[in-house]
């Protein structure tokens, strides 16, 4: 970890505002095997999908997770045009992730 660009609370606004289209933040903690599983799914699925993914290590940067009331990992928070759309928790299959991205795109 991580496979995607890291993001911190300080950098979030800039990134989310600058991005056009769907942005997702993957919240994870070290030692969380469910997070590793989700990361593997994202690594496989995301290159073909209209979404930009960032990762946030909650153990290093609890502020960002706290801002979005993330209290469990893995969590995926989705944004578009600076607006927070939805946060989902737990393991996801490839089909789950693709369906989410399609729904929110």
């Amino acid at each position, binding site marked *: 970890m991580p496979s995607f660009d890291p993001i911190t609370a300080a950098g979030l606004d800039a990134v989310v505002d600058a991005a056009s289209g769907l942005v997702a933040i993957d919240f994870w*903690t070290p*030692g*969380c*095997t*469910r*997070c590793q*599983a989700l990361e*593997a*799914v994202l690594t496989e699925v995301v290159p073909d999908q209209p979404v930009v993914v960032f990762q946030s290590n*909650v*153990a290093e940067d*609890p502020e960002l*997770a706290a801002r979005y*009331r*993330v*209290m*469990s*990992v*893995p*969590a995926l928070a989705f944004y578009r045009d600076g607006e927070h759309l939805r*946060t989902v*928790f*737990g*393991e*996801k*299959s*490839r*089909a789950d992730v693709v369906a989410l991205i399609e729904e929110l795109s």
Partner: protein
Amino acid sequence: METTYDAVVVGSGPAGYTAALYLARADISTLVLEGATPGGCLMSTSDVENYPGFDEGVRGPELIGAMRRQAARFGADLVAREVARIERHDPWFLVATEGDVVRARVVVVATGSTPRRLGLARELELTGRGVSTCATCDGAFFVGQHVIVVGGGDSAMEEALQLARLSATVTLVHRRSSFRASPIMASRVDANPRISVLTDTVVTALNGEDVVESVDVRDLRTGAVSTIAAAGLFVAVGHDPQSDLVSAAGLAEVDEAGYVRVRGRSSLTGTPGLFACGDVIDPTYRQAVSAAGSGCVAALDAQRHLQDTTVEFAASSGVLHAIV
């Protein structure tokens, strides 16, 4: 990924990897469909102290990693895919994943179990907002706070002990008067000054605006309801077998609780060529080592079936092309 194997193993805990290890070592072409999240329950177990051969204990993910490598060493193909469907096209099985279909002469079902929920109103809504099933994953969110663990087995004890390292207090809530946990785990909980225990007690409600702030509990002996302030509720009330894949398709019979029925001490299901092992058949023992042993049994049963049906399969290769 090839499209035809002698054996497909569905699932990737100790049972699945042990079955794969035995099959591959017997020179049987073997594919393990590991699911979206390989490893099974052991992946969220920090220290495994009762797996023989590891006198100092071993971390769950390390043990799983070693089993996985051992299966791969003998040539099993391992793919982290979830199985969508298993169909019988006599004498073959078709195993469908997201996007692919694999043919197999035998299928070993080692799909394990999923954590059970309490069934409380708002439990799903508050999952990720204070409700959790994994202290290893989520303990960091509750540093210095009050948390509750529900359950009376070893996994509840382990969750409580892990959380006690980080949280201010841990209240262990259990509906029975005594724990099902092993005495060694229960005595560690008893000895931990940060953990208090409420037996004969159930959680009846989750309170809080959009995160957990407190829970209501009822004392089953007196009927008294009280509220405990807590930021986190960790649910460790056991597991349900993941047998939908074979029960829905009518490939195997399941009991009232959903466990796949097997014949006697074997791994044989009602469908010839379909074998089941590990937690999905075991309502009683549910240990890493018993699951591994069960995986071995399934592999040996499958191996025998393959030997007994070699002629039949040689004759059916034309059928194979006709159905796929």
